[in-house]
């Protein structure tokens, strides 16, 4: 980083500066890349060489439904998360720090709390005789308990709860980087608050929204724990199907093929997300 004539001597212990990454590279290469590649090979060799696993995957209504449902859940979760996160991030970006730090504290507490603990809380809250149904009935809003668990509603509530911090925290950064002067100028030129929001604030925060939204979408696509506990059998998601195919059905070929599909989709979306983050960083300096 700092150009100095001492660079060579100070890294003499670790030639060319690449050597010290060797342990990490070995570890990741041997116990991450090799197993993943071996798994992917298995999808075209188990039980016999050929593409029959992929044919089975895309030819069966059951599995196609799992794919569609996975995309549906991830899309709904992402949309709801963006809508809920944006106003919060907006306030956090401009709130007095004393007030903001309380909200930040709550976000971190929720984020650091054990994932199973949070999911367990929602299992209890959303069940037929749970607090939410009882409260709604006591208020006279409903007369029969709502089915809130083991369906799309349950997964969405639980997943939005988990994804919110991942959307709010980066968005705060994007919003803080926007120069308030641009909005002052808009107001001076006679723009109404709605107009200023639609034509200035929203477009300027779009790179952050897109990057965060894509991250939430990608994480949701491959999520296992929360959908498995809060979702129903009729709307199973891909990760749970992969685990079940391998663990209960011992069908490694089919499970590997499904894992490969998940990997390709995830990596492609991640590549797009990296671009967006780069773009939003460049745009953040306006």
């Amino acid at each position: 980083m700092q150009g100095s004539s001492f660079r060579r001597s100070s890294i003499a212990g670790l030639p060319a500066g690449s050597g010290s990454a060797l342990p990490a590279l070995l570890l990741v290469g041997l116990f991450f890349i090799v197993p993943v590649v071996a798994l992917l090979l298995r999808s075209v060799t188990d039980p016999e060489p050929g593409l029959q696993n992929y044919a089975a995957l895309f030819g069966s209504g059951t599995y196609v439904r799992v794919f569609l449902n996975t995309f549906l859940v991830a899309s709904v979760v992402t949309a709801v998360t963006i809508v809920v996160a944006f106003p919060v991030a907006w306030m956090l970006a401009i709130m007095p720090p004393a007030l903001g730090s309380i909200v930040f504290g709550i976000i971190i507490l929720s984020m650091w709390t054990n994932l199973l603990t949070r999911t367990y809380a929602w299992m209890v809250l959303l069940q037929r005789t749970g607090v939410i149904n009882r409260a709604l009935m006591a208020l006279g809003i409903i007369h029969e308990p709502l089915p809130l668990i083991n369906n799309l509603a349950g997964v969405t509530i639980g997943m939005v709860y988990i994804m919110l911090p991942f959307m709010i925290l980066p968005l705060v950064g994007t919003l803080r980087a926007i120069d308030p002067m641009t909005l002052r100028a808009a107001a001076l030129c006679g723009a109404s608050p709605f107009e200023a929001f639609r034509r200035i604030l929203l477009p300027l925060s779009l790179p952050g929204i897109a990057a965060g939204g894509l991250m939430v979408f990608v994480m949701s696509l491959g999520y296992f724990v929360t959908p498995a506990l809060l979702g129903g059998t009729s709307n199973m998601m891909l990760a749970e199907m992969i685990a079940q195919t391998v663990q209960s059905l011992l069908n490694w070929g089919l499970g590997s093929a499904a894992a490969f599909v998940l990997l390709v989709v995830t990596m492609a979306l991640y590549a797009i997300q990296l671009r967006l983050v780069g773009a939003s960083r460049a745009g953040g300096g306006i």
Partner: protein
Amino acid sequence: MLLDYDRLGWLRVALVGFTAAVAAFLLLPVIFIVLLSFGSSHWLAFPPPGWTLKWYQQLLADPSWIDAALTSARIAAMAAILAVIIGLFASFSLVRGEFRGRQVLRGVLLTPMVLPVVVFAIAIYAFFLRIGLAGTTVGFVIAHTILALPFAITPITAVLEGFDKSIEDAAIVCGASPLQARLRITLPSIRIGIFSAAIFSFLASWDEVVVAIFMASPTLQTLPVKIWGSLRADLSPVVAAASSLLVGLTLCLMTVTALLRRKLSR
């Protein structure tokens, strides 16, 4: 003026109200579980008909819960130590190395954070079945170290990028050996990054469920695997007690982090 807190007018009331509602949404389930763990209803009725400590007594009297917690702590500690050491070395190379493919290397080392865990879980499970590491502590530690590594590398490289290397060079000019300069000048300066790395890698392993479900054996269970098993069976209040202790641990970690950060950044 949409980015001026003092001049938002009526909009501020609406937005602050909404933010408070979301904060409540994030906080209430955590509080709810803690309250429930002291409730006397076996059926998790809320508000509880009475208060009791019996779920905690049951929890602490059950050796399988204690075993699971100790196993988790042991594995997480080993994975965190390995991830921080390996990650520290890798970070020096990622930040200061001058070689082609540095960005590719960073991408490769951070991939375990991006790839869906379930893919890695079945891949490493199949691999460990073949080489005889499935269901062993060593296997657990290796798998969790890989998942923790990105959480160690990210904070360390972030701090290292902000560290002025000419300070290290100055120490060398003044007669320190490169190793001495690194140990006595650079390491203390980036300790916030190393400390964050340790916390995050520990949590990455301690909270990890998916790989653990595959790796666990009847004799080797981590705490998340134990909770997962109980959740699939029934919603026993004992799980609420275990969960509340985990919430307490999170609060302790947050406090320690905040205190140490304040102390270290002074």
